[in-house]
């Protein structure tokens, strides 16, 4: 198990305390806050969320898996997101995704076994004028080309991990 799978119970309590108990309507916002704290939604967090809001595990699990923005598996240290919006698509986004898949040796939606990188695709981030677009750790890189993406990813993987 990776270091990320252990979650801090105090932090979990702290996030839960920010949300009123027994109010199921707050589920999606609570899941966002839990994910912001743990970078993904650990099983334990989902179970506690269910308890806190008075929902069943099944309901919470059903909701967490419905929305694309929630991750039930630990994510990599670096997140590479390829925009697959229409504008990016007609400007060749598929090739960027393929390049990243080759470079990182994972498929879209997966994390490298060493937890260094997660490769994701997103439907559109509303920065269409910059297409094709790749977001690396939150920073937008517009007018991307496969070879440039390769170099960017290479630079990140050369750097020592932060832990």
């Amino acid at each position, binding site marked *: 198990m990776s270091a990320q799978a252990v979650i801090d119970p105090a932090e979990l309590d702290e996030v839960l305390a920010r949300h009123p108990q027994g109010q199921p309507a707050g589920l999606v916002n609570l899941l966002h806050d839990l994910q912001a704290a743990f970078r993904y939604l650990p099983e334990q967090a989902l179970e506690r969320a269910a308890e806190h809001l008075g929902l*069943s595990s*099944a309901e919470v699990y059903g909701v967490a898996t419905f929305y694309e923005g929630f991750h039930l598996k630990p994510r990599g240290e670096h997140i590479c997101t390829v925009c697959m919006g229409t504008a990016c698509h007609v400007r060749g986004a598929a090739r960027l995704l393929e390049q990243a898949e080759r470079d990182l040796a994972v498929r879209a939606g997966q994390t490298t076994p060493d937890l260094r990188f997660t490769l994701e695709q997103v439907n559109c981030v509303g920065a269409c004028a910059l297409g094709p677009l790749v977001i690396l750790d939150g920073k937008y890189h517009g007018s991307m080309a496969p070879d440039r993406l390769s170099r960017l990813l290479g630079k990140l993987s050369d750097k020592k991990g932060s832990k």
Partner: protein
Amino acid sequence: MSIRLWIDDREVLAEPGERILEVAQRQGISIPTLCHHPALPVLGACRVCLVEVQQGKRREITTACNTLVQEGMRVATDTAEVRGHRAMNLELLRARAPEAPAVRELATQLGVARSRFRPPAQNPLPNCILCELCVRACAHLGHHALAAVGRGDKKRIGLPHNRPAEACVGCGSCLSVCPTRCILLKETATTRTIWGQTFELVRCKSCGAPVMTEAQRAHAIRTKQLPEDHDDTCELCKQSAASQRLASVVW
């Protein structure tokens, strides 16, 4: 105030809040369904109960199970167009659930002898048509063990975190409402296995037939659906005991 509408040119009266399907059924007009159960909340998932509805200038094909009746509505349950769309949706379901008798029979009735489609890429519970009757029944009984998981072409029926669920009491209600009978249930003399868990069976004190699972009884007592001193006699034995008592009085 009653609502007046026409179903297959027959004038019928209905109450506000009623849906086309129930009103039609009351008239003895049958409409095929796969995801409907009168005791459970409507979902409108299978898209088989199609009818044609004319309301003012608007004409549409829609599902009878979840469409509210409205004054002056004209419903046709058996047009060529309706049959064609039902057949196409059954053809889709037939690719998903090739071995489910209910799907096969309905499809055959509508002239779909085989499906021109491939089996869907994601189909972890073979023959499941994703109607969520199981999920709704389980929730309705207060167990909430099952979930509709994921969405789109990856939607499936499952247990949270893909492992046996504490909430499941092994009652088997999910299977009993399942139109495709695709949920695996195994019983031995003393146990029942369902959704990856094995439950002890409670047997009838009188005849020894299985009545329910231990977990189910515990849940029912906890939620006060059954008295604490509930006697585990099956319905059949209760009935025959009653009729014996009756007989002893008469004769």
